[in-house]
């Protein structure tokens, strides 16, 4: 039905340039490698992951090729595991904690660097460095700084007379420590995107507000904030989608420990599959993660509707 409805417009529109059968063929030929790649490397694995989550898939399965169907057993095993609530809570705390501070600090820095002054461009571009480094490198550096006996953070604390903190060995400090690391990594991204958004706000609006006697805070509150809203939405949603799946940072800094204090859904899924070799359960946690990421993803796409509308045209 949609086909018959669409056809007239298809044949009428390209009157200026006659569509040849070969045109469509050529376009498909150019697209073909990408389509094949997406089907083989996204379509197939996603289906395989779904299937695997309903199977008792173990190391033996790789050799025998046999993985008995167990229905939703993997899901109920995962959901009834006391680690599930720990991992889910850690994921939520890690994500919210990272994003709130990344965004607040990023916005403050973007506002600061929006004012032109000597060296502002150079200094701002230097701040990009933490975001460009491999996450494993950043993780290793912070792990070294967090070291209880020889780390620089505790040395600084001792210097001002505060008791050293067992950053990575205490179950209550480990999560704040990885969140701190992740905030540091994420600040540049927030800074760059928000800075781009600020630059797009016409200076004349600020001049007008200043003439009307608006204070710096009022100018931020009534000019910057509302006009920055679309960019803010996109930054926060992209941050959510990326932070939920953070793996490298946690693995290098704490490895999910101590005593699962920093285990998130992502690291737990890795642990189930590649340490306990319970691939079915690992796949089940992965699929739960996909559902969460998809929900946020759709919220993101809705907030980026303008972008999509342009895309679809």
């Amino acid at each position, binding site marked *: 039905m949609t086909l018959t409805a669409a056809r007239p417009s298809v044949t009428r529109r390209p009157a200026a340039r006659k569509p040849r059968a070969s045109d469509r063929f050529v376009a498909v030929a150019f697209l073909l490698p*990408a389509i094949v790649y*997406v089907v083989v490397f996204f379509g197939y694995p996603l289906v395989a992951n779904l299937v695997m989550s309903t199977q008792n898939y173990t190391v033996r399965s790789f050799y025998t090729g046999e993985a008995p169907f167990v229905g939703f057993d993997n899901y109920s095993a995962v959901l009834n595991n006391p680690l599930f609530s720990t991992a889910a809570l850690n994921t939520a705390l890690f994500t919210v904690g990272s994003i709130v501070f990344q965004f607040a600090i990023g916005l403050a820095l973007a506002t600061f660097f929006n004012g032109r002054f000597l060296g502002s461009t150079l200094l701002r571009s230097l701040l*990009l*460095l933490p975001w460009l480094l491999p996450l494993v490198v950043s993780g290793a*550096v912070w792990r070294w700084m967090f070291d209880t006996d020889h780390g620089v953070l505790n040395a600084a604390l001792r210097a001002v007379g505060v008791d050293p903190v067992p950053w990575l060995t205490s179950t209550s400090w480990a999560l704040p420590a990885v969140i701190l690391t992740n905030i540091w990594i994420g600040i540049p991204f927030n800074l760059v995107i928000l800075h781009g958004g600020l630059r797009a706000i016409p200076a004349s609006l600020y001049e007008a507000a200043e003439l009307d006697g608006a204070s710096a805070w009022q100018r931020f509150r009534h000019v910057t904030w509302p006009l920055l809203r679309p960019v803010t939405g996109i*930054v926060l949603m992209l941050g959510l989608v990326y932070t939920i799946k953070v793996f490298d940072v946690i693995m*290098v800094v704490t490895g999910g420990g101590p005593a699962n204090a920093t285990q998130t859904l992502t690291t737990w899924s890795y642990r189930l599959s590649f340490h306990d070799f319970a691939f079915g359960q690992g796949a089940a946690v992965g699929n739960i993660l996909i559902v969460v990421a998809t929900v946020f993803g759709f919220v993101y796409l809705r907030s980026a509707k303008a972008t999509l509308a342009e895309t679809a045209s």
Partner: protein
Amino acid sequence: MTGRLKTAAGVLIVVVLLFPLYWMINASFQPSGALLKPDPDWFPVGGTLDGYRKALSTQGPNLLSSVFIALGTVVFSLAVAMPASYALAQLKVRGGPVIVFVMLIVQMIPGIVMANSLYTVFSNLGLLDSYLGLVLADSTATIPFAALLLRAFMISIPRELTEASRVDGAGYWRTFFSIIVPVSRNAMVTAGLFSFLFAWADFLFAVTLTTGQTFQPITVGIYRFVGNQSADWNGIMATAVLASIPAAILLVVAQRYVVAGMTSGAVKD
């Protein structure tokens, strides 16, 4: 605040935020023993290159492996993404918007899910512990990104340009190579840079799809280095510095491409 005060404040911000990087470089030049003193040395006075010697002898092959994987990912991603973006941006393809949408969505799939299922696929195909396997796996992140970035750029190439070449009798293939590719140079550099950086930094696929028997990428090398002998921070930090070099070079030589890549997909004008 006057301009000079602002510059001073800006320098202070940069010093605070980049301190971890200084600390990495500082530790990379200090003998292992000095790093274990209760009061750390703030400057690498009387430094040593031992860390770099250790890094190069134990991690040198890993660095080389990562270079191969990253270059392979760049070549493969661009080879797949360039023609696809050309078709999506310049040729009328039925279902084009659907493909763009799919490319947008797949970027949100958590990497651990991809790793979990690629592991079983690769073990069946014999692609575990292979360079080709890692290039193909890393491309799951870089191809959708590159395709969308290149497409966004190619939309702005005037149709007159490509159609003139068609009228002159050039085939699609020829038009693609002699018009689209040269005109898209900047966007290609951005897409290529980010593909390189991603593959260079990849840890998830590296740690799941290799067993360390034949080769291991540098990220896995650092991970195992940190895990095994955490007392040798001098060698670890020297390796970390070496692994940071590509990012530092890119920031210096290609800063505008870097910013273009970071803001693509977020700020559209």
